């Protein structure tokens, strides 16, 4: 026990003396949390909108003014021909072209039917879909208003237009604030990346410096050394979680409905999984550079398949099955459930026991692959 404590003390000394690493450990996560949470937005805003008004009527101007009033659209320019507008689409200056045909207003009033043509740049398919919805909403709104006006013109046969109004209620995030959704996820990402990178480079560093050879001839036991080396990073992981939760609460006002103790309890087990992965990487690489590359490979794979940026439900079945092996997936799921839904232990018991299982399995492999003798 005394030996373990001494290794831990030594390890902390080394961490705090490493002037290059210290800011990376403490400042970088905060900067990332503040920047990423504000920047990694799924909201589509400032859509580059242009129009071709061939009609020049009251109705066409009113339609365009609706787009101007919307905060989602930014009117770039108006063009006199489709050809010119298409050219601007090619150069990337505009993403949406609305073409109002000749006699738009006349057709609308006389025949109660008019066509509009909308072209959307769909290189980013998801964004194009969202843009289409926004455009449709504006045109529908315009349509209803026009209809109402039309009916008012013939007062004698006035019929109340039928309007079905849908009022959705958004559970767990009623203002649809994407930050509420993203901040817990990004927090998971930071805790994971930092502990994974630091632990994977840690033992390999001793290998590189030659100090491991000196350690290996001492009577120190494998488990003492491994625990002593990894404990500081376990503590660091929890410190980063604390800082991150504070920022989430204070800066982003993310609600924490569930129990904070449950989040810590889960994180403390989850960190064992990550440290185990880090140790396995460390055991199997000879230089810090190698360890770094392998860690990156896993980190990128884990993050992109974690449901943090893209919903797991929309992945193909085989990919969904792969995500079952991904510890980050469970952490993202659990932290969102606990923070936003107020989940209790019984709600998260299934992913929780998965993580416990991984923690035991991975650390078993890690200690087993750590060799004192070649």
């Amino acid at each position, binding site marked *: 026990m*005394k*030996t373990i404590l*001494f*290794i831990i003390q*030594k390890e902390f*000394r*080394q961490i705090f*003396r*490493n002037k290059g690493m210290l800011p990376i450990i403490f400042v970088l996560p905060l900067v990332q949390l503040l920047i990423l949470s504000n920047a990694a937005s799924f909201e589509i805003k400032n859509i580059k909108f242009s129009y071709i008004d061939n009609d020049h009527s009251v109705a066409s101007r009113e339609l365009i003014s609706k787009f101007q009033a919307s905060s989602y659209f930014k009117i770039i320019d108006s063009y006199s021909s489709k050809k010119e507008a298409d050219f601007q689409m090619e150069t990337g200056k505009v993403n949406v072209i609305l073409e109002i045909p000749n006699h738009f207003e006349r057709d609308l009033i006389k025949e109660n039917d008019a066509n509009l043509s909308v072209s959307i740049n769909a290189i980013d398919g998801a964004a194009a879909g969202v843009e289409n919805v926004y455009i449709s909403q504006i045109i529908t709104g315009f349509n209803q208003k026009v209809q109402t006006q039309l009916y008012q013109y013939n007062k004698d046969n006035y019929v109340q237009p039928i309007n079905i109004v849908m009022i959705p209620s958004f559970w767990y995030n009623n203002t649809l604030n994407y930050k509420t959704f993203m901040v817990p996820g990004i927090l998971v990402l930071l805790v994971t990346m930092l502990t994974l990178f630091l632990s994977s480079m840690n033992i390999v560093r001793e290998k590189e*410096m*030659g*100090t*491991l*050879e*000196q*350690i*290996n*001839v*001492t*009577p*120190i036991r494998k488990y003492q050394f491994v625990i002593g080396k990894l404990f500081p990073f376990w503590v660091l992981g929890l410190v980063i979680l604390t800082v991150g939760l504070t920022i989430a609460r204070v800066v982003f006002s993310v609600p924490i409905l569930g129990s904070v103790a449950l989040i810590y309890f889960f994180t403390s087990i989850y960190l064992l999984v990550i440290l185990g992965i880090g140790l396995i990487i460390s055991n199997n690489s000879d230089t810090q550079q190698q360890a770094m590359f392998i860690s990156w490979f896993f980190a990128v794979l884990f993050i992109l398949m974690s449901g943090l940026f893209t919903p797991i439900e929309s992945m193909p079945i085989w990919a969904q099955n792969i995500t079952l092996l991904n510890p980050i997936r469970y952490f993202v799921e659990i932290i969102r459930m606990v923070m936003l839904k107020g989940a209790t232990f019984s709600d998260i018991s299934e992913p929780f026991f998965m993580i416990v299982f991984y923690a035991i399995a991975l650390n078993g492999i890690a200690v087993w692959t750590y060799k*004192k*003798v*070649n």
Partner: protein
Amino acid sequence: MSIIVQNISKSYNKIKAIDAISFEVKEGELFGLIGPDGAGKTTIFRTLTTLLLANEGSATVAGFDVVKDYVAIRNSVGYMPGKFSLYQDLTVEENLKFFATIFGTTIEENYDLIKDIYIQIEPFKTRRAGALSGGMKQKLALCCALIHAPKVLFLDEPTTGVDPVSRKEFWEMLKRLQKKGITILVSTPYMDEAVLCDRIALIQKGSILKIDSPENIIKKYDKVIYNIKAKNRHQLILDLKKYPSQYSVFAFGEFIHYIDNSSTFNSIDLQHYLEKQNNTEIEIKIGNTTIEDVFMDL
């Protein structure tokens, strides 16, 4: 016997690093492994300190088998690897304390043993190990290897990259440790250090060529070595190599060491020959045999 090595062989990917090495080191002996880089010295050390498993053969250190009783060996040997391998970002004192603790002891307990050495680096005890000079680093590493009062001390090229004064001091320290009853196995590529050992093993390409005391090795050497000097060194070497009865020619300091294989060799004949080849300022005298001469001949 403190160390017994029997027919140890080790290969790395089919390349033999050491081949059927056998030797014994007596208790309290200062035993040297002398050989060039790549001779297999470090492999022997790593095998004896339980860091490496040999492919064949067996070895015991302080009465313990290197495979079966590795835990006991780790408690009773001190190892100083060739590369400085202490924590560069910890101070002198912290390093020493760290190693004392993981061996389950304290600095005070074995202070007697390291006192002579530690006193020299004590003024720098709050300095980080990485900021020490080469000689200081060696002293600190030796302290750390001694802190648990080992029965056997393994020193792998302890003086490589250390200045001559520090090297001399280092060997004096080893002599003092030896008097305290510690068995020392030391390796070095420097032939001048070989004479400081009680017995030496000359190693080359993974095999032991000779084991004996340095005095005996020199005494048993039956050839006469001539120190030869001339104005044009390069010319001299070329000419000597052309001499009909030459046995070996190699540069050694300011002289050329020349060995002849003819029983009727006469230095005056050689002098005439060299003069005929236009060498000037020729000087020929019988030199003292050194370990290096013996080694070159093996």
